[in-house]
């Protein structure tokens, strides 16, 4: 990049902030895609990629995407749980398709409103 | 300046001087084992540790390099300091039990038996005690950078690079000089072309030639001085208070206008090695007269003691006259002074040693005032005078104790027998001969020389101190061999002659000059570039030559060369010479 000025420091910091934040395990929203064997078979991988694309598109820096084991409801796969800091309980979304993902991200992650029609139920066992 | 307190005495010293120097000033002794005043303090033996109290903090520091600051109290002998020195001394004594400086210091610090076993490897008397003075001397002062330390810790030792003889060593011997235990020895043998022989010359590069030298000022021999080799050392400049030493001085050529010159360039001594039979330069203890003179001199190399090369006193001394004099192969003339100084030598040898003395002479020329009486006195003192020219000096050892000595073979004409005289030392009376460069000097002052090569005086009887050339005078041995009284007399006379001319203010010169008779001069300019003194110039407007009277010396060469006889010479005109011719023809 050649000789940098003081202002460039902030720019570099900004560019890598998301990476660093993730590394420190700091994040406001936590999206957990359930990837049990059945989940994978039901296409959970595609869902995960879709979620990541949405996050990147909106340049969100405080969303943690993780995957975990099967949540037990194989019939409702693929499923994902969204926990938001400060919200009382995590919300589990079921029978997901890439299209639903965009809606959920906009409504719930950004605006904080739960998308009722896709949600299975409020609350689930604590992951943390 | 700051005032400090050492063991109760208050001392005023310059700031930043070391405690050691301040203590010296206060007359307090502090032990040191790795300190030399030529070197930067090294501070490794730690013996000079003292206790320094500033404010409430007291600490142990080494005196040799601790810079003094105001308000300091120093205890050079507190209980703790004594204890420290004792333990350090025990360590050194246990490792170097037989080294003299260590034993002396241990005694002084009352350390008897070390409580540690020896390391069984440095028990020699001249073991190296790793004080580092040689390394610092070689690197910081001499700047030859040859010595250095190798290995670390207990295996530390002083080494030459790759343990081999180093080419950058300039054999100055400074390391051996500063080594306190004599561990470093300078091997006196043929090393890089420098053959160290028992030279009668000076011991150090800077020396006062002799105490009678005028001016009595030291000179530096650039050949052997370290500074001119490596740019280092400069110790002489450091210790010279009036710092009168300036290494950048060069010889200068000084031109002085003078009216008259007294040429008293002295003589050379005949090189006796030309007469191989006397063994000069080949055999030990065969000295020329001047060398023996420097041995007798109290400020000379032997301090006046008559000693042989081995340093011992000779038992018998032979003095041989006429070496190179009265000898058709070398110098026919008699050098006039040898007989008398030979007698002086005999007298001094008799006076300073109890050696037997033999003199080999052809004729005893004791011609001067009181000379004959001195000769008789010598005879009474038991000097054996052998009338006969010594033929040869050969090696021999007669004292039977393996000491090398000499034998002089000669024919004693008074008893008509051939004799072989055993002696330890031979003194040759070398002939006095003209200086090697006397021809060049002669041409410089355009004076001529007599048959024996010395300068020719105007008249041997009536005018021995002036020369045929106006304004040039001679005196002393330059005019011929003579002793000191005669030389002084001649010098006085030459000086008087010069002063008389100076006193008159002007100088009469003979009116012998060339002159151009302009009417006859055809302007051919033949004479112009003929004149060695460029005294003839050509007047462009008159188209005639003209002689500059001040420059013309009157040699007449131009007069003879002038085709139209326009040039006449006062005092030697053609007419006068022709008249002489007529006169001669009757």
């Amino acid at each position, binding site marked *: 990049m050649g000789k940098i000025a003081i202002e460039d420091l902030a720019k570099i910091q900004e560019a890598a902030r998301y990476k660093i934040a993730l590394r420190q395990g700091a994040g406001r929203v936590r999206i957990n895609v359930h990837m049990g064997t059945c989940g994978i078979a039901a296409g959970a991988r595609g869902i995960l990629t879709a979620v990541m694309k949405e996050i990147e598109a909106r340049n969100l820096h405080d969303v943690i995407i993780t995957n975990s084991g099967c949540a037990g409801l194989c019939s409702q796969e693929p499923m994902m749980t969204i926990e938001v800091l400060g919200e009382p309980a995590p919300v589990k979304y079921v029978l997901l398709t890439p299209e639903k993902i965009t809606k959920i991200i906009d409504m719930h992650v950004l605006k904080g409103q739960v998308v009722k029609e896709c949600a299975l139920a409020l609350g689930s066992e604590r992951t943390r | 300046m700051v005032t400090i307190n050492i063991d109760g005495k208050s001392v005023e010293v310059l700031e930043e001087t070391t405690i050691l120097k301040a203590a010296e000033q206060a007359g307090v002794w502090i032990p040191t084992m790795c300190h030399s005043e030529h070197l930067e303090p090294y501070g490794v033996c730690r013996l000079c540790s003292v206790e320094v109290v500033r404010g409430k903090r007291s600490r142990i520091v080494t005196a040799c390099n601790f810079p003094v600051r105001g308000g300091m109290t120093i205890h050079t002998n507190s209980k703790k300091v004594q204890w420290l020195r004792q333990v350090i001394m025990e360590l050194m004594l246990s490792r170097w039990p037989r080294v003299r400086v260590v034993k002396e210091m241990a005694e002084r610090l009352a350390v008897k038996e070390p409580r540690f076993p020896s390391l069984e490897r440095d028990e020699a008397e001249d073991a190296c005690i790793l004080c580092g003075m040689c390394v610092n001397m070689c690197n910081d002062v001499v700047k030859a950078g040859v010595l250095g330390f190798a290995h670390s810790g207990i295996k530390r030792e002083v080494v030459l690079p790759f343990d081999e003889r180093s080419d950058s060593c300039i054999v100055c011997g400074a390391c051996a000089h500063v080594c306190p235990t004599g561990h470093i020895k300078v091997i006196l043998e043929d090393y890089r072309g420098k053959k160290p022989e028992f030279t009668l010359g000076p011991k150090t590069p800077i020396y006062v030639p002799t105490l009678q030298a005028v001016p009595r000022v030291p000179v530096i021999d650039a050949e052997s001085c370290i500074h001119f080799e490596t740019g280092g050392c400069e110790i002489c400049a450091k210790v010279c208070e009036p710092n009168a030493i300036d290494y950048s001085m060069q010889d200068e050529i000084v031109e002085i206008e003078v009216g008259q010159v007294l040429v008293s360039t002295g003589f050379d001594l005949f090189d006796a090695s030309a007469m191989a039979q006397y063994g000069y330069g080949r055999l030990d203890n065969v000295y020329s007269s001047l060398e023996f003179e420097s041995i007798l001199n109290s400020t000379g190399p032997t301090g006046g003691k008559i000693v042989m090369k081995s340093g011992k006193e000779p038992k018998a001394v032979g003095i041989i006259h006429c070496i190179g004099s009265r000898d058709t192969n070398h110098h026919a003339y008699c050098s006039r002074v040898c007989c008398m100084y030979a007698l002086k030598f005999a007298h001094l040898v008799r006076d300073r040693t109890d050696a037997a003395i033999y003199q080999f002479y052809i004729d005893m020329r004791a011609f001067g005032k009181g000379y004959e009486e001195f000769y008789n006195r010598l005879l009474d003192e038991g000097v054996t005078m052998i009338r006969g020219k010594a033929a040869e000096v050969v090696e021999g050892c007669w004292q039977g104790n393996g000491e090398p000595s000499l034998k002089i073979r000669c024919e004693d004409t008074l008893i008509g027998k051939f004799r072989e005289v055993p002696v330890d030392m031979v003194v040759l009376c070398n002939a006095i001969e003209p200086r090697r460069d006397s021809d060049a000097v002669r041409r410089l002052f*355009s004076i001529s020389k007599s048959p024996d090569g010395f300068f020719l005086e105007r008249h041997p009887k009536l005018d021995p101190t002036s020369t045929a050339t106006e304004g040039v005078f001679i005196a002393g041995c330059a005019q011929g061999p003579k002793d000191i009284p005669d030389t002084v007399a001649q010098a006085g006379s030459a000086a008087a002659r010069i002063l008389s001319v100076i006193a008159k203010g002007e100088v009469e010169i003979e009116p012998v000059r060339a002159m151009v008779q302009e009417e006859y001069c055809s302007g051919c300019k033949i004479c112009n570039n003929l004149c060695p003194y460029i005294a003839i110039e050509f007047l462009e407007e008159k188209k005639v030559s003209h002689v500059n009277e001040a420059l013309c010396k009157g040699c007449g*060469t131009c007069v003879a060369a002038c085709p139209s006889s326009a040039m006449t010479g006062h005092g030697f005109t053609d007419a006068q010479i*022709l008249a002489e011719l007529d006169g001669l023809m009757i």
Partner: protein
Amino acid sequence: MAFEPKIIGFLCNWCSYTGADLAGVSRIKSAPNVRIIRTMCSGRVDPAFILKAFQLGADGVIVMGCHLGDCHYQEGNYKTIRRLPFLRRLVKGFGIDPRRLRLEWVSASEGDKFALLVNEMTEEIRSLGPLKLSVHHEIQQPVAHH
């Protein structure tokens, strides 16, 4: 009585004349035939003088100067050494045997050399016999006229 040659010697004041003087002082015996004229330098000796000397009846002429390099006037004897050899070839034309004219270097210390030269020259001229030049006759006659 035997033929006593008349030889004229031109001696330079600084070297050969002093040499001659030294010979005298040293009581060296030598032939009296050489009659000396002192000039400041051998360079002063004009070839005309030499020819005049022969003309006046000299049987031999010798010119003496300082050794090359010793000349009191630096280069005087260099001029002489150019003139004299040339003159010696010239005198042959006048019917004078060149051996009657010599140039020698004698320094102030060579008294014995001076004496040697004088004796040598005298014997040589004596062997050559008197110089007979046609011009000699006229000279005698006018003298006779007085």
